């Protein structure tokens, strides 16, 4: 099905895509309810053959598998601590994927195993915060943008207030009050302060869409407010929101790592890259590999999500090319 559309749309997809999107979406929205087809299948057709999308997507897929089943890739427990494993010994990179191939940390735990098991925390927090922020931000942004007037004035002030709070400091203040901090505590803190960006984007997007002809047509056909919002406004306003959310995902993973690094993020016994990097600071002068390997994996993860977001943005908005 994407193939047929692809061959027709290939030549003209770039020039006509940007302007024609809303109209085409409205006409096409018939069979799959609420799902604009042409925009997304065009984007998918574009993305499939771009290495800047395929490579990060494959890395993220692999990270998801590691996050779900870290035990598939190592035989030792990340918490097994054997102090006869000397952390000062230079890791030998020859034993690929054996527990000692990246060396041991100061507790005699396998760095490789801890990196694998730490993946889950970063991925879960990144994805969960993004989902929460997208839902909450879209809701607030849609109400503010669609109803305007005093609703907009009120919600916009609330957005301004939350934007005024410094993100990292605010998250620290929330998290200090919990003695044990799990993935969900950190998710709550980051989502509580992070939803404003999505809300602003959604508001702008809805304001431009509510003046379009197909919304006027739906209204004159007697559609109710909820139907207009869910069937017409929301699907068409979603594209920029999803792009912003995808790019922000990498930022949430960074934020979790920074908080854990400061000792205010995930607490023991949770395993996270940021926490391991925090505990490795003391040894940086004598054994920097303890700090370096989790940092490299953390950076690759953030980079992959960023590149994925960038690629999707380019595909959804041909004007930006």
């Amino acid at each position: 099905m994407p193939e047929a559309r692809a061959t027709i749309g290939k030549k003209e997809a770039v020039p006509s895509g940007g302007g024609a999107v809303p109209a085409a979406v409205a006409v096409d929205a018939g069979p799959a309810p609420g799902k604009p087809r042409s925009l997304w299948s065009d984007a998918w057709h574009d993305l499939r053959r771009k290495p800047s999308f395929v490579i990060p997507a494959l890395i993220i897929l692999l990270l998801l598998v590691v996050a779900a089943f870290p035990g598939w890739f190592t035989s030792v427990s990340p918490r097994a601590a054997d102090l006869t494993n000397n952390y000062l010994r230079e890791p030998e990179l020859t034993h690929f994927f054996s527990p000692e191939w990246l060396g041991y940390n100061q507790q005699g735990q396998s760095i490789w195993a801890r990196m694998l098991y730490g993946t889950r925390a970063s991925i879960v927090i990144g994805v969960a915060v993004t989902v929460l922020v997208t839902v909450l931000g879209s809701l607030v942004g849609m109400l503010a943008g669609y109803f305007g007037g005093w609703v907009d004035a009120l919600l916009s002030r609330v957005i301004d207030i939350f934007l005024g709070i410094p993100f990292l400091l605010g998250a620290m203040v929330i998290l200090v009050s919990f003695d044990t901090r799990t993935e969900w505590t950190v998710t709550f803190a980051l989502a509580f302060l992070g939803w404003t960006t999505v809300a602003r984007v959604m508001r702008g997007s809805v304001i431009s869409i509510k003046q379009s002809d197909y919304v006027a047509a739906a209204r004159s056909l007697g559609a109710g407010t909820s139907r207009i919002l869910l069937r017409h406004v929301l699907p068409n306003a979603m594209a920029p929101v999803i792009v912003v959310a995808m790019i922000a995902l990498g930022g949430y993973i960074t934020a979790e790592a920074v908080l854990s690094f400061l000792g205010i993020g995930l607490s023991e016994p949770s395993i996270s890259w940021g926490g391991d990097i925090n505990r490795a600071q003391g040894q940086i002068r004598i054994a920097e590999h303890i700090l370096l390997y989790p940092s490299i994996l953390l950076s690759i993860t953030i980079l992959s999500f960023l590149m994925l977001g960038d690629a999707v943005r380019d595909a959804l908005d041909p004007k930006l090319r």
Partner: protein
Amino acid sequence: MGRYVVRRLLQMIPVFIGSTFIIFMMMYALPGDPVRALWGERAPDEAQMAAIKADLGLDDPILLQYWNYLVGLVQGDFGTQIQSRREVIDVISDALPATLRLTALAFLITAVVGIGLGLLAGLRAGKKTDRGILFLSLLLISVPVFVIGYLYQTYPGVKWGWITPTVRDSENWGELLLPALALASLSLAYVMRLTRSTIVENRRADYMRTARAKGLPQRRVVGNHLLRNSLIPVVTFLGVDLGNLMAGAIVTEGIFNINGIGRTVYEALNAREGATVVGVVSFIIIVYLVIALLVDLLYAVLDPRIRYA
């Protein structure tokens, strides 16, 4: 112009009250009693504890406490530390110079290097230089600031011995260079990308062709026409970012051992010193709001078509 400024100042009031209220509520909802902590392991003297609480106003209802705090704030009183009995404003003004110097240096690096590299990439869009700069920016965004900080500290600082790894004297700009570079890295990357994309957008504008056709030298075409027209979104970002740099200094100051605002707030947070935390955050919020206003006024300088009624 004057009326616009007054209107903007009035709009700031609810935002300021709302943000400080949220931080205040979160801070004072924390478990743990800092007054009780004054006695440590010893049994507290109940009467003395009650007297200290009454003196600091900690036994009032929370909303009244917030109201008193706000009234004090308007008069320039940021409250008193419980442990040391120091005025919070003194604590802030002791720590502020180091953070201001660090932030200023980081801001300078962000603006000069970011705009410079972004301009270079934009003018050579699609070429090797452009791709190199874009990749550098992605790298700077994806490596978290604490990793960059430790890399700078370990390699040029400890292993190669080019520069002192920690800051002993925050008035020495040379020692502040490494932490400022680390602090600036994320904003630097964003400024590069933003400058590049606006330059690419404006490069083919009609006024550029006109300027070239008039026979203006390349320097003038790029400097006066292209750059000035492309800077508005960059200036917006730089303005918002100044507040983020101050808040982000918390990590950099820890790694490089600088006694600034970030260290102060981090220690206060762990000691449950509510007044200090709320004071520092309120201060950063004020900085953030004032800069946002200044940025808006700066638009008119960059683009004379923008006027404020």
